[in-house]
């Protein structure tokens, strides 16, 4: 399969070369599939048609982790693409690999391009910005955690279908009633680490890791701190719900999502990017709502952290090519392009302008709930809510999954599991600190 892929890519590249000799080519590796793949191709097409000097060539390189591995291998052999889409979990690795990438701020400045990092939604911009204020990667497709519920199931259980449970105590109460009404799966959760630990921490304005969650200048020295009483209390509550059959664990990553669209589970917390799937496949009335919170926690709710990906510019290319990259980014940051992307994909509008334009067009009024994710993000960010940027984070996410699974199946207490995440995660962070010693 790999070879077939390679051959196809090569063949494609060859035809492109012949037809566009005069143009400077910009290679763009991404991980967008299905409808999002069409979106990416359309963006490149629009840009290519808008001018004659450059040609952006988007190439699908597999899932986020696969495209990153592919780009790293390519970089090591001197064939890296110009632009690489990297998921948020890989951000710390990209940032720490000085010399492998060129900061987007620099690319734009060198090309004299029109670029204002201040136009981006604070939580998005802050995540991809270095402590010295320079924007390192170009925000592209950002998502965040939101809450979905099945209105039909709510009605059947005698709950108010027009108002989603806003707090965790209300969620657990609703779960009990759903269970009593005969619903076999009142609640499930996708991306457990992301939604229940990372987003949960930001939402409640509590520290996830030291060094401002890894975003400070000494970010590589960060250590995880998610065994606080609030974290233990929340995971313990979920464990109790799991034991009572009110919360059902459906697997890692996005696996749980299918059980919501199928109507099996009545409530789910997952990515805002799940909206398109629900809108297309759900055969029941559904509602979108902000993440629940604990009302007694001071500072809650704050804002949520972002998921999704951004575009990195790889090092070692010619100045003319960087100019093309800058031109392309300039094209992408246009408000109308941003707004169209947001409405098409369900990803966040990453600039304030795109949000306002979408709002004015009546999109949010027409599709209620599509503004929930935005409203959760458009707030003043704190050190605890800016985002989480830690090294070896792919492995740490796995540890989070492993330990939480032991809690859901009743083999470990919430406290023991969170302690284990902290100690196992911190070993990996110590390794990261060592491998990136400046």
């Amino acid at each position, binding site marked *: *399969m790999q070879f077939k892929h390679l051959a196809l890519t090569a063949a494609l590249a060859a035809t492109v070369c012949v037809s566009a000799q005069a143009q400077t080519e910009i290679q763009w590796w991404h991980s967008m599939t299905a409808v999002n793949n069409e979106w990416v191709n359309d963006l490149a097409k629009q840009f290519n048609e808008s001018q004659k000097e450059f040609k952006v060539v988007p190439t699908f390189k597999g899932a986020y*982790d696969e495209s*990153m*591995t592919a780009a*790293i291998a390519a*970089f*090591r052999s001197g064939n890296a693409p110009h632009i690489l889409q990297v998921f948020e979990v890989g951000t710390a*690795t990209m940032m*720490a*690999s*000085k*010399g*492998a990438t060129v900061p987007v701020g620099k690319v734009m400045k060198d090309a004299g391009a029109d670029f204002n990092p201040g136009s981006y939604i604070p939580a998005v911009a802050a995540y991809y910005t270095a402590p010295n204020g320079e924007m390192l990667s170009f925000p592209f497709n950002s998502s965040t955690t939101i809450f979905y519920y099945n209105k039909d199931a709510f009605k059947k259980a005698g709950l108010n279908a027009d108002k989603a449970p806003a707090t965790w105590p209300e969620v657990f109460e609703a779960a009990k009633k759903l269970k009593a009404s005969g619903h076999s799966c009142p609640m499930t959760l996708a991306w457990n680490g992301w939604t229940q630990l990372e987003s949960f921490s930001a939402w409640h304005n509590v520290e996830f890791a030291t060094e401002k969650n890894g975003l400070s200048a000494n970010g590589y020295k960060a250590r995880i701190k998610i065994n606080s009483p609030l974290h233990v209390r929340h995971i313990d509550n979920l464990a109790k719900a799991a034991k009572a059959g009110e919360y059902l*664990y*459906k*697997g*890692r*990553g996005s*696996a749980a999502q*299918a*059980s919501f669209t*199928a109507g*099996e589970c009545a409530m789910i917390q997952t990515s805002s990017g799940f909206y398109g799937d629900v809108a297309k496949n759900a055969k029941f009335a559904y509602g979108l709502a902000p993440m629940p919170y604990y009302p007694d926690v001071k500072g809650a709710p704050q804002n949520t952290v972002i998921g999704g990906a951004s575009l990195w510019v790889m090092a070692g290319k010619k100045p003319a090519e960087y100019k093309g990259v800058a031109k392309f980014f300039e094209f992408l940051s246009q408000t109308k392009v941003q707004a169209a992307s947001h409405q098409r994909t369900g990803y966040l509008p990453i600039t304030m302008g795109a949000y306002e334009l979408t709002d004015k067009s009546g999109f949010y009024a027409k599709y209620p709930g599509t503004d929930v994710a935005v409203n959760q993000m458009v707030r003043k960010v704190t050190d605890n809510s800016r985002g989480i940027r830690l090294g*070896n984070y*792919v*492995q740490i996410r*796995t540890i989070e*999954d*492993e*330990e939480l*699974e*032991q809690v*859901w*199946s009743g*083999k470990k207490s919430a406290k023991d599991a969170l302690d284990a995440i902290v100690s*196992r995660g911190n*070993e*990996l962070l110590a*390794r990261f600190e*060592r*491998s*990136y*010693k400046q």
Partner: protein
Amino acid sequence: MEKRVLFRSAWLPWVLIAPQLLIIGLFFFWPAGQAVIQSFQMEDAFGMSTEWVGLDNFRQLVDNPSYLDSFQRTAMFSVLVAGIGIVVSLVLAIFADRIVRFAMVYKTLLIVPYAVAPVIAGVLWVFLFSPSIGVATYYLGALGYNWNHMMNDGQAMALIVIASVWKQISYNFLFFLAGLQSIPKALIEAASIDGAGPWRRFWNIQLPLLSPTTFFLLVINIVYAFFDTFGIIDAATQGGPGQSTSILVYKVYQDGFKALDLGGSAAQSVILMCIVVALTVVQFRYVEKKVQY
């Protein structure tokens, strides 16, 4: 009688084996050597900074209780995969060998799974046994059995064993079938005339004559379980729940290819390599003695 081929020239034999040596060197010794070097280093993903850390990567693994637990899991997994795989495919091969009509159809159907990529195999079984949408889960539920391999260790292990065995059966089947067909019919017929039933004929004639094949498959299947199953595990359970299906090679794959921790992953693969070398030596020294060629 002298069986060896004699070369008068000093260099000709070297020239003749050179392509083979080159391929082994290029595709086996070179990467293996690199893995050994990398296992003593700590490196960032892009290779911008490399530090020699001696045995630190190994020390970290030895200090990690969850890594040590993984040995036991891997042993159990590979014994199950090799054992069940060999027995089931032997049974299938015996049946296929006796079939007169539609033999080609059966054989083809049995060989098809080998053409399926490991990840696809994993996905296929996940669809069957998915806790929410699985067909098999649905019928098991109707029978009163609650299947959820996301929560249940034993079920998760059973799922990856079934998927791995299913994937490997075709390979074993082909060898067994070829082995069975190469047993002279005269032997079987003679035994039949002497009054030996099918069970007796199998036990005293076919099985002993198949022992070289079985031994070869034992080695191949152990190596398969150790090295080739990460795709299935990644698609089916991702090592969970907890770490109950995280066998050694899965952790190598995950840490190296997904998490880009090259040093740590290289150290694990060096350990894995040593285990398989040791296992193979043991097999050839002790198990092979029972094999009659």
